[in-house]
């Protein structure tokens, strides 16, 4: 059954901060800049904002949690952004920022607030983020950490190898996705690599991080913030920009298997289940999408989402992305903004922001033809998977 809120909630404004790396600046002002830009975009004042929602997790597990330094939660925004009398706020964890967007939509629908700010601020300090894992392994980690196999990096690499072995996928094929994202980033000023084109040979020569994952298969960590202003469809009509509308959503609720919860099968199953819920919620299917923003914290995730969401059959994503099919003027444009790979690691907020810009016809040189419906699938399906469908009409 379709979501009863379909078309009733709108995205009214989008704002980016500068995108930097290895900075000694605090994170807070990046969030302030993104929020100010999102407000200016839609013509609202900070006093108009009465709802806040974010996914505030620090960029790295084990990082400190200082408000305005390593993270920006509602506490920082309330203290520094001159918002109005905030009536509702939320800090979401599962489902990344996509879940924070869903939460804001539900709050708006339920009348908890009239104008909600949603943001994702990511820290990338010069001195790094502190220890990635604790020194002692407990729980499930005791079966993996003693072997040095304790982070998303290794789990993604292991699943990717399995995929390559099973379906005969190659790095040469992966290059098509990586180069497509980098090209798109050069058409987008709000990306870290906007002035750094990439060649096939450079991709193939990139150093291995956790073989078969090379450096350029991993997103680029940045310090940045992106903010969205959301409101009801009625209120959005009175604001400056043409709105985009939320048609439906999904959150991954697949049971987490014990210990090795990043097996290839888990990616397949969680991606399939989440996508199926998304299509049901939106009352639309993969054939209705004019473009797709598919998470690429590690590049294979985009391939898994392509298959899970039904854009191509299982095992065929590496063939699907060839020959310009995912280019801006292709059959299914993918990650038109450059993806996390080339825009920067914004944990899905870049994907959501681009869906809004595409659906409202504001993507400039990246604008796809006839962008009636755009899907966003974030997380790497098993880990914090979630989805949105954003449409140009309610």
């Amino acid at each position: 059954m379709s979501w009863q809120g379909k078309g009733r909630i709108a995205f009214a404004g989008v704002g980016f901060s500068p995108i930097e790396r290895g900075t000694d600046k605090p994170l807070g002002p990046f969030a302030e800049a993104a929020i100010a830009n999102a407000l200016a975009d839609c013509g609202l004042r900070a006093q108009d904002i009465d709802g806040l929602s974010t996914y505030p997790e620090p960029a790295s597990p084990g990082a400190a949690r200082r408000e305005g330094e390593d993270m920006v939660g509602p506490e920082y925004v309330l203290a520094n952004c001159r918002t109005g009398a905030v009536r509702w706020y939320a800090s979401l964890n599962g489902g990344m920022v996509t879940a924070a967007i869903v939460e804001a939509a539900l709050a708006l629908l339920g009348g908890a607030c009239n104008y909600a700010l949603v943001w994702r601020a990511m820290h990338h300090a010069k001195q790094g983020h502190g220890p990635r894992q604790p020194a002692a392994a407990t729980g499930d980690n005791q079966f993996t950490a003693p072997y040095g196999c304790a982070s998303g990096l290794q789990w993604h690499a292991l699943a990717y190898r399995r995929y390559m072995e099973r379906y005969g996928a190659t790095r040469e094929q992966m290059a098509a996705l990586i180069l497509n994202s980098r090209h798109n980033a050069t058409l987008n000023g709000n990306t870290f690599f906007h002035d750094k084109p990439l060649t096939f040979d450079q991709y193939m020569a990139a150093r291995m991080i956790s073989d078969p994952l090379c450096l350029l298969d991993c997103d680029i960590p940045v310090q940045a913030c992106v903010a969205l202003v959301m409101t009801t469809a009625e209120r959005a009509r009175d604001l400056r920009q043409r709105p985009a509308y939320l048609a439906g959503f999904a959150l991954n609720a697949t049971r987490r298997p014990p210990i090795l919860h990043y097996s290839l099968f888990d990616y397949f199953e969680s991606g399939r289940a989440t996508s199926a819920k998304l299509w049901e919620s939106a009352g639309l299917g993969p054939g209705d999408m004019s473009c797709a923003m598919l998470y690429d914290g590690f590049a294979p995730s985009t391939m898994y989402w392509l298959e899970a969401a039904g854009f191509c059959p299982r095992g065929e994503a590496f063939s699907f992305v060839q020959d310009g099919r995912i280019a801006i003027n292709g059959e299914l444009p993918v990650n038109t903004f450059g993806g996390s790979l080339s825009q920067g690691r914004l944990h899905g907020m870049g994907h959501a922001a681009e869906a809004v810009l595409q659906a409202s016809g504001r993507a400039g040189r990246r604008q796809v033809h006839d962008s009636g419906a755009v899907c966003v699938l974030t997380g790497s399906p098993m880990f914090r998977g979630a989805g949105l469908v954003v449409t140009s009409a309610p």
Partner: protein
Amino acid sequence: MTWTRVCQGAAAGFKDVLPYFNVVVELVEQAGIYMVTDHPGTDAAFGDRLRTGAPMQVVFEHVEPGFTLPQFRFPGDKA
């Protein structure tokens, strides 16, 4: 079976032993039970033999008194 050769971004305590292999094996005794192993990434002969379905066998690595880790090696290889 699946595997990776970790060259950068090591887990805690493993930075000094880069590069290293991580291999995931499925137990013949019970399908669906997976275990992890590690091995020096400089052992090219080991890497060349990694294939889906290749049989491995358990050995026990005595890391320190009171701490023994099951590891998986190719039959005939020393621990």
